[in-house]
């Protein structure tokens, strides 16, 4: 064994560059794998993870206090793993006035604090209610700037039935147990109409039915009719999935791609290392090493740097993944779940070295079978007559001899060339696919962000917090807004419930005028076109799916007392903010519309300060409540960041693969290089020879890899979007233009040249005296 160790140590020392590259490749691959796996893991169940972390309720139940006592509720614990409550609960009818949110009935719960066995709230801003007259509201966490800009900061208090509650804090319940919380004393004063119990059940809770069943188990002992309502956690989960679901498949694709590339590159690098060592293997055998010992030497040689790289890579990947995941899931409204789970660590630490070991085993076992003489000559004897003919033909061309020698070498060693080509091809395909994907992602989120405008405005209702209402008509409000400096586009919408033939529930229709189409909504068309006539409408995919409609279908509606048949002429991605089913219709006047039924959306000219603009609106008319969207921009930044990080990681790994292959080529040809230098090849010519041959491969790799990458993008992106039931507008898939393609070919050449330059330069500096006299 000590002989094996000694030989392996010597080999590692002799091949410092290769050892370093194996370590580096292992490092980057591990980091990529850890980031990818952590991402996939987090994505597989962001909601479930967040729920588990908060110990959120599997069921939020409301009981009738007239029928069941608190003591009875506390005692009923059949199949319950943990429970919180009983808490008093009341519907708080907020008249409105707080912009787009917190209107209508809110569920308030009296709770002594945010902790407990179940539903441990994330109190992300302010403090918990400590005295009557105080309330904490439920919302996903936001950072300082988004909060300041967003609608929440416009809610200082809530008023209903003469009670005013001051907002003292913001907390988030992943399971959505309430809209707000007050002290138990305040709740008593509000006269609770229900009693809330929060349950976590033991056993299977994967479906609504299962949760229902567990709940029945709890309530069987209680008086009949005690349970007023119960909400299984799946309800909230489905809502949450709608918001962020679009991005998950894309990010997931990156994760999977990262895994695949890492595995292939590691395989490529390691088998390259072993193949290039054949001559060395022969010598070991000649020395009397048994085949088994030779394999052991080789495995040790690659596993040592791979393990070192894997350890560093895991740490690096963890450090990198943490903030990314945190931001991503915070941006998606799942709180600050962050951890990289233990199994991902294990996969990084054990997986990559194991993979290295496995891939090394294949060529190493070939070395096992080779006789000493065969192995020694495998490094020197030319095998392909074809390649040699090419070499000879090239020797006769007018190319500088250093260039033609380099090119000829590609053909003389077809196996090595194939290996290099594979890593280049992979590199370019990866870079193509990754940039395409990240481009699609960026476009998609830009599309997402573009719609919705910069500032939204709604007139205050009479019972709003300020008590001030606007006396302007909708036309006057529009005129006011148009007159403000910084206004670029204005869209006006009036939301009305409209009853439709064959639909049991009325449809909330947004009647729009002004620049709505140009504010991003028309860009989001997935199919059809924007409406052009009074009897045409455009619907969101969600609405079409829900109501079983298609583009081209007609709907018969009761409009202003007249039966009208309208045609759905287009399908879009997104609805206007606020309530509504996502049907856009051309403007109509409604006599009975209240001022606060109107909604205004403004795009600002480049460089206009949102705060100042909103301040200008407030001072022009205190009855108007403006707010600006936060959050979604953040998500865009995150998504862009994530995809860029992964794209860069993958490109780096690909470049390292090439670097390694070239380094091996150089190592393998030390004697040749020494000889060429001894007969007068200059250092520059040595570099030219090595770099041009690799650049040629780079061009070939670029020309082949790009179509591969493009096809993969075309196939994989819609596929993964489809898995999340999202249709993508064609515009986000058409991401390539000729310039970009040229840049991609260049990237192939660049990867190859960068990969070749380092070893080529060290080859040019090689002290040749030793190599030539020995061996």
């Amino acid at each position, binding site marked *: 064994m000590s002989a094996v160790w000694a030989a392996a140590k010597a080999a590692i020392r002799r091949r410092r560059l290769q050892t370093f590259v194996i370590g580096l490749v292992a490092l980057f691959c591990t980091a990529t794998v850890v980031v990818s796996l952590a991402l996939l893991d987090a994505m597989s169940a962001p909601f479930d993870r967040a729920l588990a972390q908060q110990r959120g309720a599997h069921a939020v139940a409301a009981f009738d206090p007239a029928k069941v006592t608190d003591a009875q509720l506390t005692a009923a614990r059949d199949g319950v793993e943990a429970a919180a409550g009983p808490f008093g609960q009341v519907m708080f009818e907020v008249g409105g006035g707080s912009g787009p949110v917190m209107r209508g009935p809110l569920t308030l719960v009296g709770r002594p604090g945010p902790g407990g066995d179940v539903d441990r709230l994330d109190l992300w801003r302010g403090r918990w209610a400590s005295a009557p007259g105080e309330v904490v509201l439920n919302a996903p966490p936001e950072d300082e700037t988004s909060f300041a800009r967003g609608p929440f900061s416009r809610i200082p208090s809530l008023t209903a039935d003469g009670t005013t509650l001051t907002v003292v804090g913001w907390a988030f319940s992943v399971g959505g147990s309430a809209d707000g919380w007050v002290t138990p004393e305040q709740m008593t004063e509000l006269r609770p109409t229900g009693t809330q119990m929060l349950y976590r059940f033991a056993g299977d809770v994967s479906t609504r039915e299962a949760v229902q069943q567990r709940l029945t188990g709890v309530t069987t002992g209680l008086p009949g009719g005690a349970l007023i309502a119960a909400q299984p956690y799946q309800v909230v989960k489905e809502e949450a999935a709608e918001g962020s679901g679009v991005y998950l498949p894309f990010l997931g694709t990156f994760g999977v791609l990262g895994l695949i590339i890492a595995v292939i590159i590691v395989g490529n690098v390691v088998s390259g290392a072993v193949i290039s060592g054949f001559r060395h293997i022969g010598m070991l055998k000649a020395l009397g090493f048994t085949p088994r010992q030779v394999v052991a030497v080789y495995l040790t040689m690659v596993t040592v740097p791979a393990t070192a790289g894997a350890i560093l890579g895991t740490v690096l990947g963890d450090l990198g993944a943490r903030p990314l995941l945190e931001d991503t899931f915070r941006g998606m409204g799942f709180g600050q779940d962050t951890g990289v789970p233990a199994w991902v660590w294990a996969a990084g630490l054990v997986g990559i070295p194991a993979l290295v070991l496995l891939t090394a085993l294949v060529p190493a076992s070939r070395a096992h079978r080779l006789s000493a003489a065969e192995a020694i*000559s495998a490094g*020197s*004897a*030319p095998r392909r007559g074809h*390649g*040699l003919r090419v*070499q*000879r033909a090239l*020797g*006769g*061309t*007018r190319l500088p*001899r*250093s260039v033609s*020698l380099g090119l*000829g*070498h590609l053909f*003389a*060693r077809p196996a090595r060339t194939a290996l290099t080509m594979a890593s280049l091809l992979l590199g370019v395909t990866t870079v193509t696919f990754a940039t395409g994907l990240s481009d699609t992602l960026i476009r998609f989120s830009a599309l997402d962000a573009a719609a919705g405008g910069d500032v939204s405005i709604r007139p205050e209702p009479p019972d709003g917090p300020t008590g001030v209402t606007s006396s302007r008509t909708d036309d006057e409000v529009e005129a006011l807004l148009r007159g403000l400096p910084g206004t670029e586009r204005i869209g006006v919408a009036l939301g009305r419930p409209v009853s439709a033939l064959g639909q049991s529930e009325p449809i909330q229709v947004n009647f729009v005028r002004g620049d709505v189409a140009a504010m991003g909504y028309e860009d989001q068309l997935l199919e059809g076109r924007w409406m052009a006539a009074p009897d045409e409408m455009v619907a969101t995919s969600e609405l079409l799916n829900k109501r079983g409609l298609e583009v081209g279908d007609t709907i018969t509606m009761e409009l202003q007392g007249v039966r009208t048949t309208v045609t759905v002429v287009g399908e879009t991605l997104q609805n206007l903010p606020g309530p509504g089913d996502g049907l856009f219709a051309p403007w109509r006047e409604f006599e009975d519309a209240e001022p606060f039924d109107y909604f205004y959306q403004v795009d600002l000219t480049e460089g206009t300060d949102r705060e100042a603009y909103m301040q200008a609106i407030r001072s022009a008319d205190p009855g108007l409540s403006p707010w600006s969207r936060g959050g979604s921009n953040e998500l865009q930044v995150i998504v862009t960041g994530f995809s860029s990080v992964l794209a860069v990681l993958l490109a780096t790994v690909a470049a390292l693969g090439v670097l390694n292959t070239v380094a091996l080529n150089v190592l393998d040809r030390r*004697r*040749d290089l*020494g*000889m*060429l*230098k*001894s*007969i*007068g*090849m*200059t*250092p*520059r*010519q040595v570099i030219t020879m090595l770099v041009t041959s690799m650049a040629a491969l780079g061009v070939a790799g670029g020309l082949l890899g790009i179509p591969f990458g493009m096809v993969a993008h075309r196939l994989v992106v819609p596929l993964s979007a489809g898995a999340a039931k999202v249709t993508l507008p064609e515009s986000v898939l058409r991401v390539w233009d000729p310039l970009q393609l040229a840049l991609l070919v260049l990237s192939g050449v660049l990867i190859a040249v960068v990969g070749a330059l380092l070893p080529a330069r060290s080859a*040019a*500096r090689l*002290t*040749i*005296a030793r190599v*030539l*006299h*020995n*061996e």
Partner: protein
Amino acid sequence: MTPLSVVRSVPGMTTETVVRLDGVRKEFGETAALDGVSLEIRRGEAVAVMGPSGCGKSTLLNMVAGLDRPTAGEVTVHGERLDLMNETGLALFRRHHLGMIFQFFNLLDDLSALDNVALAAQLTGSSAATARRRALELFDELGIAGRRDVYPAALSGGERQRVAVARALMNRPALLLADEPTGALDSRAGEQVMDLLIDLNQIGQTLLIVTHDERLAHRCASRLVELADGRIARESALDRV
């Protein structure tokens, strides 16, 4: 003549002097492989360097070939100060004025024998056709014309060394350097290479041969330089056998 070579040419040195080493010292870390070696080789001479293993023979040869630089002292070859040149300058110098043969031939495996030899001329800018023509002449002279399309792997040791000699002679070097040229050959093949070297010297080729082989030294060399511990221990004229 370019201005640079004017600077480098050493005044007072007759064109008859091909190599002049002046107080050459070469250190590898603590040990001095060469310790103040001064040596002159005139055109047409055949000098053999001998000595025990590790005494600095190859190091000396490397100095003359510009493959390595002295720690101190001057190395002048063909009128040029090699110790003052940069890597590229040395490469160009070797290309035009030196030929080298080694114990282990150092042929390129994926070029045929002929192309290996032609390569040396192609590096100096000759066209492929011209280079091959000149290589063929040499193959004829060296008696290996029949092996011109064979790849090195299929050549015998003696044949490989003759191909290596042909390559070294391609650019009509002022000086032919050989480090153990017979070291890897059996006695018959060794004899052939020796005969070749003698013939070359007879037509005026200057030779510097490093060897362990007494026979080689006595048959081919007109002067013997004996090294010990990096110093010249003895110099003697030889009567060729």
